[in-house]
């Protein structure tokens, strides 16, 4: 099961893609997912992350089949 990676808003534009599928048979860290999906070495401090549509911190592990999202600070309301 691939890991589905999503990018939103200004981060989506900077990365140049909105969605990417990563093949993995083992759990990955969010840092690894960021590097493999964005092509950028370091996960910026102000990027927010979710796994399966729930907020997580950068130390969380991601399982094959999970949906991961990276996005900038939210500005709704």
């Amino acid at each position, binding site marked *: 099961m691939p890991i589905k990676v999503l990018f939103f808003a200004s981060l989506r534009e900077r990365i140049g893609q909105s969605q990417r599928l990563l093949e993995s048979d083992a759990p990955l860290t969010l840092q690894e997912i960021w590097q493999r999906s964005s092509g950028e070495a370091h996960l910026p401090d102000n990027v927010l992350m979710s796994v399966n549509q729930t907020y997580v911190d950068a130390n969380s592990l991601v399982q094959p089949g999970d949906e991961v999202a990276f996005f900038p600070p939210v500005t*709704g309301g």
Partner: protein
Amino acid sequence: MQYVDVRETPFEPWQYLAAWQAQQLPENARSGATAVFVGTMRDFNEGDDVTGMYLEHYPGMTERQLATLVAEAAQRWSLDAALVVHRVGEILPAQPIVLVAVWSAHRAAAFEACRHLMETLKHTAPFWKRETLSNGTVRWVERNTPG
């Protein structure tokens, strides 16, 4: 009763409230205190004239996160009912963006729950504003104004 509506089409908040309350809250269950907040798009931001806005969101997580916030507030303040309506997509100045309404037996609970819901929505619901200025510039709003 807890309800979340993330919608692409404009809405008139007072008509929405009249219709929702009439349908969902029977007259014999009317709460003593109702607190409401409506956020409306302005035609300026950070000193610039704004002519339009696009509100991007994370379909699925948005509804889920809003439902979580509503459920937490309903439990914390023993609310009788709570409603969140939020626009996404293309929005024009003077159009309502967000409506938060809560019904409670007590006015302090109503005020506090309504304000708390707006603050947590602003800080955690996955929406992003991209505004178009009168000179044609398009920019992402970097952060929300403080509470």
